[in-house]
């Protein structure tokens, strides 16, 4: 293996279309107008010495090494800052230029160590050699060679003695990251790079690594580069944290990972990174990694390390025994959005083919399942419509229930660039997120709604647009279903949807809604970005449809700069959904009831698929407590920590007889497991991840598997032991099977990915290199479908007993349940979950900043530290869920999205009280009664209350139930439910279901 080298053209590429010809050192060069002479020269193979310029940053012109002479012009301008012009005649080398360059370099060398700690990494010495000078004649009385290093950041050092004040770090912080943490302090000779007068760790620095990447010398250096040494080989792979899916060069020295360097050619990140992807990979080699399989008969027994074959046989035997005793549907599996498409595909195949049922679900259930449903209904496919680059073409950006600077930092940087170039921002969020006001960015509107009232706000916005003549009639007429639009327009224009009516629920002033609606509707290009603040609600699916309606009504679909863009939580949420992880869907979002689709798989796999949906995760828990579901294979998801209503989850897990956990580490779920199968980190995987922009990126093995095999092999071994032989030579072979069975992936192969770098699906005969923007000429479903989105308040309401609303989210440095980031130095930034409380709520309860508080909801209680802040409004409290000990999900309830059962994490009624004690053992609530029946009643009533239908909703309710419920659940709805608990619509729907049967 060799080092992958990405050339640096010194200045960014010109966006001009017209071409200019000029002569450089006698060679004729033709380049785009506005290209710098430096870049043009490099394209012609002429390398002009440079230090302060790099092609990720605007030209700066400070080092004065790149000086050139131009025929007919005075002086020696810098080639980085001078654009080409037609007929120009440039000389890059002459006696005079050599003298200037040597003179400048001599000055550099007069204040720089003769040898740098990073050796050849220091470009200064490289350029000096090229210029032909190695020492300085100056006496150098005053130097900066005795300045102290700043070692405060856990991942990189700042050694001012090596700093050449080229400003690349400062400019990267400004232009690439947009944080403005760095500056130059003092002027003249005393000018030094500074993290704004304090140490890096105490500064505003978010450790994205852009400055380290930009630094041409050893001034900003990864600590690992100093401890491990210079890398000797590199591999291009994809980050395994969030849904942005950044491409990295993993740089290795032997078997050791020296550093992760963001790839300039990376489609998602274009050379940028965040603290997690760039630095927080140490968990992969953490001593907590379990690399040997383990089994036990009971969860109270100690673990016993065994061989792979023993573990697989034990697991298979347990699962088979359950199926013999309780039926074929008594087991199932959960795929992971942290795993590759190939691993996910194989797991769902194992469930469908080897387990013989459709009880497969994915952790996307708890995050973006409403996106799948909502965008499927309106547009015809379950995915964001744009690529990330699109945001740079937006004029107005609507950001709903997402906090990109924390959760999708690399995308946030792009968004900030667009905003600083003049795009306007509308933030819809209960919290004052960073983008409401951050250096260089001020949101035009912050609609600070109460948690749970998203649909009220989106309806009010749409109402203003519909009733103020702001609908893009041309777009709607040409592209959307006329009947659905007509019905929607009538519905949304009703007074009940006016901002004035809905103000009481949402608490957003009507005038603000009206102003925001005008701003968005009148934008040339209006785009909508949203996160889990949209989906994780009782009306998550309704809200997604409301967003889709708004985009269609304003004509913001099908070109650059517009669109509906879910910001996916995990690295492969999109992929795990694409791969057929949902119990009702096969890969490519094709319903299991479709015989033509089933035939493809039946033929390919030599089996007979069940034609009815299997269980969703919460259904599995309910069924487990009911004794009908006894075996579970869960890969790479810590459901015991991440899923809501912990007591309910724990009770369900405890009720099972064979829980198989496959993961890197023992976790909360493995406490309830009987088999632990070690997993592989992304650094060991060979496959693909699909990010939020549908971009399929290669994940290449950087190091040998720590468990001696690939993760899909383990899955195949289990399937084989269950009686259905499965095996693949490699990840590429799995992708070939995906392509063969999935039309939207028909054109995808590892070979093509290696050639193109990445591919945005759909990739087929029509779009052989993928599809950056979807729905360009027509919607995937043909015509865009408007959906009625009645606002139905959640049942989770603030009461006298629980007067506050808790909402949850993430911070930049930690990731979800923290299994990875808690095992890195990232804890320095966030070492515990904190409860944000508004001053007035704290005052009322006698809560002091930094003190312990008891947080209780109707399902449980926990103890956390309080932080008094005005980032939350009065009546709302907020926390993160990164640490198991804080038990944020002990508080969250069983309520979920009516259509997809995505949990309502974002709204829980709670109360606070001061606590003299810190957190102790988790106190669980006793689960009583028949939770499965309760769920069935609640789900049915919720569907009936929310189903988008004006007349005869019962037909749609019946259809929805058939589409998404298991036959066993429908059975219980018929037979076991006390009919007085059901709404009239559900009762009518049951009659229809009976007729159907």
């Amino acid at each position, binding site marked *: 293996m060799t080092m992958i080298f990405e050339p640096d053209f010194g200045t960014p590429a010109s966006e001009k279309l017209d071409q200019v010809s000029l002569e450089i050192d006698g060679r004729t060069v033709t380049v785009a107008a506005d290209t710098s002479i430096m870049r043009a020269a490099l394209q012609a193979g002429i390398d002009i010495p440079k230090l302060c310029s790099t092609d990720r940053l605007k*030209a*700066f*012109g*400070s*080092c*004065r090494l790149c*000086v050139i002479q131009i025929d007919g012009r005075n*002086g*020696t301008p*810098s080639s980085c*800052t*001078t*654009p080409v012009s037609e007929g120009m005649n440039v000389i890059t080398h002459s006696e*005079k230029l050599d*003298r*200037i360059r040597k*003179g*400048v370099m001599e*000055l*550099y060398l*007069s*204040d720089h160590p003769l040898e740098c700690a990073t050796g050849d990494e220091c470009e200064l010495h490289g350029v000096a050699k090229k210029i032909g000078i190695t020492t300085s*004649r*100056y*006496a*150098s*009385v*005053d130097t900066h060679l005795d300045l102290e290093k700043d070692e405060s950041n856990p991942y990189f050092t700042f050694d001012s003695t090596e700093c*050449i*004040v080229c*400003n690349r770090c400062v400019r990267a912080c400004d232009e690439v990251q947009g944080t403005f943490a760095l*500056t*130059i302090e*003092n*002027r*003249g*000779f*005393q*000018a030094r790079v500074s993290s704004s007068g304090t140490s890096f760790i105490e500064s505003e620095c978010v450790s994205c690594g852009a400055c380290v990447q930009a630094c041409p010398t050893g001034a900003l250096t990864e600590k690992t580069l100093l401890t491990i040494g210079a890398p000797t080989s590199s591999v291009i792979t994809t980050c395994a944290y969030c849904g942005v899916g950044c491409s990295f060069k993993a740089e290795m020295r032997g078997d050791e990972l020296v550093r992760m360097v963001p790839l300039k050619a990376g489609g998602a990140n274009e050379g940028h990174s965040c603290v997690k992807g760039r630095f927080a990979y140490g968990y992969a080699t953490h001593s907590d990694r379990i690399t040997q399989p383990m089994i036990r008969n009971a969860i109270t027994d100690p673990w016993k390390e065994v061989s792979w074959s023993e573990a697989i046989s034990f697991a298979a035997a347990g699962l088979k025994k359950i199926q013999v005793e309780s039926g074929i549907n008594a087991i199932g599996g959960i795929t992971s959005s942290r795993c590759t498409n190939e691993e996910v595909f194989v797991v769902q195949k194992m469930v469908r083919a080897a387990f013989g049922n459709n009880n497969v679900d994915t952790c996307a259930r708890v995050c973006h399942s409403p996106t799948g449903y909502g965008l499927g209904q309106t547009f015809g496919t379950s995915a964001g419509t744009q690529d990330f680059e699109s945001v740079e073409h937006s004029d107005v950006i609507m950001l709903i229930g997402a906090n990109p600077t924390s959760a999708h930092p690399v995308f946030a940087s792009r968004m900030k660039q667009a905003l600083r170039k003049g795009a306007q921002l509308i933030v819809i969020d209960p919290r004052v997120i960073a983008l409401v006001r951050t250096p260089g960015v001020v949101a035009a509107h912050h609609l600070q709604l109460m948690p749970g009232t998203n649909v009220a706000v989106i309806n009010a916005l749409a109402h203003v647009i519909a009733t103020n003549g702001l609908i893009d009639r041309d777009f709607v007429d040409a592209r959307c279903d006329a009947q659905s639009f007509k019905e929607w327009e009538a519905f949304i224009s009703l007074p009940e949807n006016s901002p004035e009516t809905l103000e009481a629920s949402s608490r957003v002033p009507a005038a603000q809604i009206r102003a925001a609606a005008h701003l968005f509707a009148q934008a040339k290009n209006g785009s909508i970005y949203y996160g889990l603040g949209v989906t994780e609600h009782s009306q998550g699916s309704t809200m997604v449809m409301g967003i889709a309606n708004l985009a269609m009504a304003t004509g913001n679909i099908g070109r650059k700069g517009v669109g509906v863009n879910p910001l996916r939580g995990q690295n492969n949420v999109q992929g795990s959904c694409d791969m057929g992880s949902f119990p009702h869907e096969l890969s490519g979002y094709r319903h299991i009831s479709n015989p033509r689709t089933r035939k493809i798989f039946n033929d390919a796999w030599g089996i007979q698929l069940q034609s009815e949906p299997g269980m969703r995760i919460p259904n599995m828990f309910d069924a487990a407590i009911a004794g009908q579901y006894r075996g579970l294979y869960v890969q790479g998801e810590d459901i015991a920590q991440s899923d809501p209503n912990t007591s309910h989850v724990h009770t369900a897990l405890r009720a099972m007889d064979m829980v198989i956990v496959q993961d890197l580490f023992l976790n909360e779920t493995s406490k309830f497991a009987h088999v632990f199968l070690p997993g592989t980190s992304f650094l060991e995987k060979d496959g693909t991840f699909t990010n939020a922009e549908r971009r399929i990126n290669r994940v290449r093995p950087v190091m040998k598997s720590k468990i001696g095999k690939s993760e899909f092999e383990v899955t195949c071994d289990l399937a084989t032991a269950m009686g259905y032989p499965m095996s693949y030579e490699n990840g590429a072979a799995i992708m070939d099977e995906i392509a063969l069975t999935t039309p939207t992936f028909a054109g995808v192969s590892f070979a093509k990915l290696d050639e193109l770098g990445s591919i945005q699906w759909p990739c087929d005969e029509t779009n052989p290199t993928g599809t950056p923007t979807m729905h360009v000429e027509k919607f995937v479903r043909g015509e865009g479908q408007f959906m009625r989105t009645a606002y139905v308040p959640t049942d989770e309401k603030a009461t006298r007993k629980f007067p506050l609303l808790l909402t949850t989210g993430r911070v930049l440095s930690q990731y979800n349940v923290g299994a990875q980031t808690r095992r890195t130095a990232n804890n320095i930034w966030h070492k515990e979950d904190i409860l944000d409380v508004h001053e007035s709520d704290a005052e009322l309860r006698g809560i002091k900043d930094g003190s312990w508080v008891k947080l209780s909801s109707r399902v449980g209680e926990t103890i956390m530290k309080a932080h008094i802040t005005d980032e939350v409004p009065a009546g709302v409290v907020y926390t993160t869920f990164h640490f198991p000990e804080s038990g944020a999900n002990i508080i969250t309830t069983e309520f979920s999205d009516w259509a997809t059962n995505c949990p309502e994490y974002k709204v829980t009624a709670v109360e606070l009280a001061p606590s003299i004690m810190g957190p102790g053992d988790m106190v669980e609530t006793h689960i009583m009664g028949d939770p499965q029946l309760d769920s069935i009643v609640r789900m049915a009533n919720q569907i009936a209350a929310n189903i988008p239908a004006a007349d005869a909703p019962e037909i749609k309710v019946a259809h929805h139930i058939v589409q998404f419920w298991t036959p066993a659940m429908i059975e219980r709805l018929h037979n076991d439910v006390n009919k007085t608990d059901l709404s009239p619509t559900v009762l009518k729907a049951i009659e229809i279901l009976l007729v159907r049967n």
Partner: protein
Amino acid sequence: MRVFVPGDSAATSIGADEVAQAIALHDPSLEIVRNGSRGALWLETLVEVETPTGRIGYGPVTPDDVESLFDADFLKAGAHPLLLGKIDAIEWLASQDRITFARVGIVDPSSLIDYEAHGGLVGLRKALLLTREEIIDEVTESGLRGRGGAGFPVGLKWRTVSQTINAEKYICCNADEGDSGTFADRMLIEGDPFTLIEGMVIAAIAVGATKGIVYLRSEYPHAISALQRAINVARANSVLGSQILGTSYEFDIQIRIGAGSYVCGEETAMLESIEGKRGVVRAKPPVPAIEGLFGLPTVINNVLTLSTVPMILAEGAKTYKAFGVGRSLGTQVFQLAGNVARGGIVEKAFGVTLNELVHTYGAGTLSGRPLRAVQIGGPLGSYFSTAQLETSMDYESLLTAGGMLGHGGIVIFDESVDLAEQAKFAMEFCAFESCGKCTPCRIGSTRGAETIDLIIRGVKVDENKKLLLDLCEVMTDGSLCAMGALTPLPVKSAMINFPEDFTGAPK
């Protein structure tokens, strides 16, 4: 009865306020006008009395002299040891070509009426009748060049801004007068601020700008308040605002105050500073005329440049360009400072000799010791020797003589000066004031000072002189802006014109 006691900082710094107070105390019925200084600084405080035959001057007056002035019946031009006679007859003033400074010292700087009474607003009124093109043609025709130091043709700059299409444009007046030995901007703003305002309005109309900014240094508090007062008056009288003199033209001016950095007088660093950023030089292109303040087309002109425009419009380009020589047309406001007997403002047509300025106007050194060196053009200007006194003071001749005009500051040194120390000071000044962006200026200036220090101490003198000359070339050709590029001027001129100071021999 009007008595004039200058209220500008040049006069008040030596007690003009106390003089005015003493006069008022003695006769409260007198109308005391706080005019600007006439620029004859050695006569301050110069008290003038308005008489039927014209203004009669007394000076320099101290508060202690006031009683005796009344005793001498100075209100009626009575005889007194300080009596100077009719102001207009004082040769030092009468022999000057006061165009830019025509009203300074004469008018009440806070009175628009007084301003108009002395020919103010004539230029603007004429401009309002012309097309934008015609205004620019007139300015181009006059040959007016930028008085900030670079001498760039004003008409050409305005035309570029005018032709750059944008709804928003700026007029930025550079009043960050930081050169040692210069004070003309300050005296003009304190003595005749409406001229600057009128010049900016004409510029705005010519290029299609609606916003003006005067970047004034914090060291000029009197100028800041004088200009703000004048801006308020101008707004109240529709010289500024949304309907300039009843037309549809719109223009207003804000003052931005500098924070003490010399390099912020460099036009692009000034823009950064106005934008609220560190005062760091920008690379050009793009030139500010196309992408200036906040990325918008911007005229950047010095106070003296803009303040000359009203006269050009009022009296025509031909009148203006009748002054001067060659391509240096019109007048230059020279400022005599340093070790000089008669310091102050000397506005003369280009072509006056250095000798005339130093001896005729300056009357030699203040110390009375022989003259040794003259630095022309601020801290980055060349040191001239007595052998060069016949140099014609115009852009081209100075360039030929190895110097530059700069902002017109002339600092005089007697025989006690050590030019090696002065050369070292030039480098130290650069090291202290450099913005720190480009390498030649940032590191070079410090290394330059260190190297000259070695020469002074007699360490490897020849080697270090060679190194110093190499450094000067790198700074001249390699620096990003004039700060680093011009610092070698005083150094090299000192080495060439005063080689005896660079031998390393003990002094």
